Structure formats: structure tokens, C-alpha cells
């Protein structure tokens, strides 16, 4: 028959309790987030990890939900969001898209060349990082068709765009070649209005709103990420796939 010693003297109990309390010390590691010089670096690493996992979750063939015409919000209810001005005064007569980088056919491309590519129309949800969302109707050419037109290097990894209002953005090539990623020149079956990014914008239902740059002026195909993005340089996520 086993003999159990169920007693412990006070002093030993205090020692045991103290030891158990000290075992909680790892919790204090979280305090690093409260130390200003460490905080920025830690948050940057955290955001980077979120971006990395988002990129891992991205599936090239997986489509964003599309909607019936009856689910599309009226055009007047589709918000206009910019960071500086709504209309940078693009001159449609002289506008071209300047293509450069790892492409066989760099140079100036006219809107008619983009419009000559197969036109895709899609009703998709636009989600702003602020939290609101709206279902709109968009039309344009697949960015992947345009990249084939300009002879983009298949080994290229990034697309960078610049805009008439000094906004700029960049995309991973997997998203750029996604079937729903458009060089968009139409909304609600009409040419883009000035405030919505005329004559050409990115429309990417698999990305957050701020990556869908308006009033494009330049497009560069690269192997390395050179320019990141206006909002990313302020501290937002780069990948932000939905």
C-alpha cells in the first residue's frame, strides 16, 4: 500500500509558489512592443509576416466572387477615393501608357491598343482598406493579355505603375496575371470618368482598393521590387491580397 506524504511546510510552499510565478517570465517578452526603439521593427516584422502568409494563401486560379447586375450598386453610389486630388487633368489627346523594363516591345501605347485586346466585363466587390465595400461593374483588357502584347519576360516578378497624380503602386506577377486583373477603361459600360481614373486604371478584385491605381501613365516590368507603393511607404501592407 503506497504511503502518500500530503504535507509541505510553509517555507517550501512559498519557494514552490515563487518558482511557479517566475516561470511566467516569458510573458514579459511582450513588453518589447512597448519599447519605442523596438516597437517599429517588431511591427514591421509582424506586418511582413502577414504579407508573406497572404502571398502563400494566394491561388492563381481562384476567382473573386462575381455578382448579378441586380446586385451592382448604382454608379452614383460608387465612392470616389483619392489621396490628393480627384482629377489630375489628364489630356486624353496626348495620353499614352509608357511601357518599360523587362519587355520585348517597350514604348508608348495608345488606349486604342489596349481596347483592341479582348474586353472583359465583370461585376465584382471593391473593398477599401477603410472597411467599406461596394459592388461595381468594370470593363477592360486582361493585364496578362497586355503583358503578352508587350512581350513581358515570363521570369519577371513584379509590375510597377505610376500615375498622373504622382500615385504609384506595384503588383506581384501572380496577381498581375490573374484572369480577373484588368487594365480597366470602362465602368458601368461607359468610358471611365475622370474622377474614377480615366483613361486607364488597374481593377483587381483580388486586391484591396488602394492597390488599384488610377490614371495610369507608366507601367514597368521588373525582376526586383524597386518602387513599392504610395500607401505602403506610409506603413501599409504591400501584398494585401483579399
Amino acid at each position, binding site marked *: 500500500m503506497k504511503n*502518500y506524504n*500530503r*504535507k*509541505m*511546510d510553509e517555507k517550501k510552499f512559498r519557494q*514552490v509558489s515563487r518558482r511557479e510565478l517566475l516561470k511566467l517570465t516569458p510573458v514579459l517578452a*511582450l513588453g518589447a512592443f512597448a519599447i519605442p526603439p523596438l516597437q517599429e521593427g517588431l511591427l514591421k516584422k509582424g506586418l511582413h509576416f502577414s504579407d508573406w502568409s497572404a502571398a502563400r494563401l494566394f491561388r492563381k486560379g*481562384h476567382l473573386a466572387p462575381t455578382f448579378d447586375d441586380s446586385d451592382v450598386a448604382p454608379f452614383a453610389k460608387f465612392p470616389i477615393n483619392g489621396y490628393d486630388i480627384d482629377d489630375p487633368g489628364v489630356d486624353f489627346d496626348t495620353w499614352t501608357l509608357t511601357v518599360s523594363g523587362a519587355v520585348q516591345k517597350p514604348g508608348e501605347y495608345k488606349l486604342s491598343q489596349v481596347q483592341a485586346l479582348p474586353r472583359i466585363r465583370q461585376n465584382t466587390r471593391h473593398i477599401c482598406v477603410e472597411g467599406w465595400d461596394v459592388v461595381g461593374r468594370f470593363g477592360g483588357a486582361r493585364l496578362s493579355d497586355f503583358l503578352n502584347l508587350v512581350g513581358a519576360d515570363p521570369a519577371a516578378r513584379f509590375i510597377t505603375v505610376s500615375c498622373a497624380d504622382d500615385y504609384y503602386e506595384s503588383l506581384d506577377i501572380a496577381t498581375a496575371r490573374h484572369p480577373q486583373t484588368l487594365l480597366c477603361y470602362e465602368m458601368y459600360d461607359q468610358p471611365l470618368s475622370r474622377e474614377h481614373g480615366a483613361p486607364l486604371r488597374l481593377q483587381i478584385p483580388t486586391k484591396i482598393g488602394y492597390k488599384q491605381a488610377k490614371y495610369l501613365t507608366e507601367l514597368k516590368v521588373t525582376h526586383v521590387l524597386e518602387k513599392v507603393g504610395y500607401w505602403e511607404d506610409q506603413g501599409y501592407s504591400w501584398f494585401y491580397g483579399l
Partner: protein
Amino acid sequence: MRESVIEIVQATQKEDDAAVVVARAVYEHPLVVRLCHWINAVALFVMVGSGLQIFRAFPSFGAKIPQKDLLHWPRAFAIGGWLGGGLQWHLTFMWIYIATGIVYLGYQIFSGNYRQVLFTRRDIPGVWPMVRHYFFFGEKPPAREAYNSLQKQAYTAAIILGILSVLTGFAVWKPVQFSWLAWLMGGFHYARIWHFAVMWAILLFVFGHLVMVILHGWNNFVSMLTGWKKDPEYFDPNDAMREDEVGK
């Protein structure tokens, strides 16, 4: 699993002096549980604070045009300073929050310790007497185990809410890659509402939890720090623990 009980005795000089019991103690909370509890408490605080910062950017669940704000949450009670900052904290701490949740659940299941916390059918009759005692001046039901039925209900609900906060969060964060999950919730727009609602349910739990911790005194609070609860109400003299088993 019955918690093992020890008797704390006065330190004596002589071997043959009778031991004077000054208190009893039970090892209620294993180290993993305690670590997860405190790390998750900090993580939850940051998730709520940064989440409300994100909410401030569009404090509405309707259309953008016209925008009708639901409530104004003060910047002073949010973490991050602005939307970009709020997102940095939220998208960093979510991994800590999720990791502690997984470690906690895994530990509870694989150690069998979940029985201490999990609300089951057998707990249903015990809920009302506990509610009557706390809110309607009913008499205090005798304590038979570490957690009474109402506690088990609260903690089980809290765990479910924690899981829901992550699922709704993923639907809001990745409504395309997790489109099936978002669809279950009614789509992105509704997932955002559910995420917000789950947060308030969790805050309600936290409020109740803190009130109960205060009401139940120092010894109870200390048990989540050292694992040991002094003078538990449910002490059963038939429980025994060898000295060399203590702290394992």
C-alpha cells in the same frame, strides 16, 4: 481529473512535533494554461484596441454613400494612432492571439485537462442555482470541483467566441481566398458585422470575468499566477499528492 491537494504545515524544528496545518492548497492551473492565459490577455487587449482603431476609419456597417456612422470611438481608447498603425498592431498580434489559442486548446485536449473547463450536459442543472446565487441573492451552492457549472459555461463560451473572432477575422481579411468562409457568414459585408459583434460578446465576457475575479478574492487570483489555490472550497480529504509529484 481531480486536482491534487496538499496540506501546508508550519515549519517545525523537531521531527516528532505534530504538524500544524495552516492551509491547504490545490495545483489548479498548469504552467501552459497560465502562460496562454496571460499572453492571450495582452494579445486580446491589443486586438480590441487596434481593431477599434481600424473601425474608426469607417465606423459604419452601411453604405459609403451616404455614410451614417454607428458610433464614434475615441482615438484615445484605440491603439495605433491611425488606420495604418492600427492595422500594423492588428496584423502582428493576431498571430500571437491565434498561436496561444492553438497551444491552449491543444494542451487542454491532449492532457485531458479540458474536463476542468468544458461545459457538458451534466452541467446544465447547475447553472440556474449559480445564477440565482450571484444575481438574485440565492444561497451558495456547495462547490464540488474547481469550476462550477456557470464558470464552465462562461469559459466554454469564451473559447467558442475566441474561435469565432478568428474565423470572422479571416473572412474579413481574406474574403476572396476564404470566399467559402465569407459566404457562410453572408459575404464580406456581413462578416465585418459578425466580427464586430463577436468582439462585443468577448468584451462582455471579460467584464464579467474581471468582476468575478475581484469578488472571489486574492487566493483565487493568485492561482492563475502560481497555479496553486490556497484553501479551495471543494477540498476533499480523499485526494492525495506525493511531495515529489508537486509542480509536475
